[in-house]
């Protein structure tokens, strides 16, 4: 909950109109982004991302499971977000559930692509060990540790970083079982498969305040928004997902305009994020 006085509201809105926001940023500038990988040793991959004072942790856990009957050639990927009351007292008890579902669904839309799997950041067919019998189930968990706006972008970045940090053990199918039997598998302790995460999209949220839209809104700025659109955009500049939040309607031509702005911003964000991720990975190797 953000309690703002009338004066503060005018200050935020006026600043956005003049392209000088309360913290000195321009409308299209992100707060500093900080990435740390490998923060949860028990997981297959993990990362902590801090954008300004927003902080999230993402972890990737892989478990062996059975592919669904409908898609025998595909593994399963699930994304869950948990809002810790540490970040916001209103998340206590069941208070964070609505936001958790909203963020989980938005991330699934943005990162997992369409029903056939096209446009997904992670290729689900790469998770299959033995077709129709054994596959990896990927559980991606996000945790909000500190919330100061722009949670979706931070979670998207954290998931991208966690996936590039993920090593999935190589699995050898030792005895090829016939018929309905489950084959025996041997999980390697030494060989790990890495994901190619260059295709994983980044999420750029444009928040509309007044007539203008801004990137990376703080929670004070979010309280003044009329609506916000989150674009998930990959390296090619293609849109991989889109969700809108906030009530008021937007003119379709404004949306097209926002798309081109988001594509431009995503290029910078991808470059920035990938250099941060590789720096974090290098830093982890040294330790």
């Amino acid at each position, binding site marked *: 909950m953000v309690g703002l006085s009338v004066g503060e509201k005018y200050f935020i809105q006026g600043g956005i109109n003049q392209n000088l926001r309360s913290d000195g940023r321009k409308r299209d500038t992100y707060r500093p982004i900080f990435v740390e990988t490998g923060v949860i040793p028990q997981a297959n991959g993990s990362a902590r991302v801090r954008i300004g004072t927003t902080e999230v942790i993402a972890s990737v856990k892989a478990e062996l499971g059975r592919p669904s009957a409908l898609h025998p050639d595909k593994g399963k990927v699930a994304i869950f977000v948990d809002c810790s009351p540490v970040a916001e007292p209103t998340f206590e008890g069941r208070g964070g559930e609505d936001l958790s579902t909203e963020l989980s669904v938005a991330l699934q839309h943005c990162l997992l692509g369409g029903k056939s799997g096209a446009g997904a950041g992670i290729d689900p067919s790469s998770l299959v060990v033995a077709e129709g019998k054994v596959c990896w189930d990927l559980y991606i968990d996000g945790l909000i540790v500190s*919330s100061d706006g722009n949670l979706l972008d931070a979670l998207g970045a954290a998931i991208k970083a966690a996936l590039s940090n993920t090593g999935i053990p190589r699995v050898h199918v030792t005895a090829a079982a016939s018929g309905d039997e489950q084959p025996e598998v041997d999980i390697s302790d030494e060989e790990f498969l890495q994901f190619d995460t260059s295709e994983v999209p980044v999420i750029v949220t444009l928040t509309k305040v007044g007539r203008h839209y801004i990137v990376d809104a703080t929670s004070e700025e979010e309280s003044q928004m009329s609506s916000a659109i989150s674009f998930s955009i990959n390296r090619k500049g293609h849109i991989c997902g889109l969700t809108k939040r906030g009530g008021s309607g937007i003119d379709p031509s404004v949306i097209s305009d926002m798309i081109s702005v988001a594509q431009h911003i995503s290029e910078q964000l991808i470059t920035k994020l990938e250099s941060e991720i590789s720096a974090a990975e290098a830093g982890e190797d040294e330790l």
Partner: protein
Amino acid sequence: MEYVSPEGLRLDGRRPMEMRQLRAQIGAVAKADGSAVFEMGNTKVIAAVYGPREVQNRSQQIGDQALVRCEYSMANFSTGDRKRKPKGDRRSTEISLVIRQTMEACILTHLMPRSQIDIYVQVLQADGGTRSACINAATLALADAGIPMHDLVTSCSAGYLNSTPLLDLNYVEDSAGGPDITVGILPKLDKVTLLQMDAKLPVDIFENVMQLAIEGCKAIATYIGEVLLENTKQLEYRKGL
């Protein structure tokens, strides 16, 4: 299973009376009034304190003292097997209660009547001793929030396996099923505020194990004192004093 080798080394290479590596950091959550991260080996918890502030639910307001509330939650990825439900199970409720009672005992609640203090603890990684780590993190967070307390509560666990008292059990030792004791003390006042034990233990051995846990608590108290002092120095430095 052998938990202490003939050379006197435990599974993770520690001596029986050795504690895991401690690490603490103050101020991890920008929006909270006080917050801290506390690590004991692989166990890592984050605590945030909001308050003292207006009581949210009027019916819970206490006329002559502050209302202390606590919620404990575990992240989905905190354990080896992925948890499906991050909070609300019986174990979480029980630990929330333990932390609340322990912290309430040391906060000078009578100084803040009709107000509310919320303590939220989030386990990022669980490797045994989460209860103790949570209490230590909560103490640091309360101190960071500037809430008046009698003393800094610290907590540590100890167990008894292979006829040896062991300090600060990790997950494997904790799940061995032997007796384990969690102690919380007020180190300056030399008082025990929390004592939990399951399984049975002869009285004379219990005293040994308990003494070991208390020693552990005191060591943690020294460390927490150092961290707080260092933090205060940093604040002073930033103020330009």
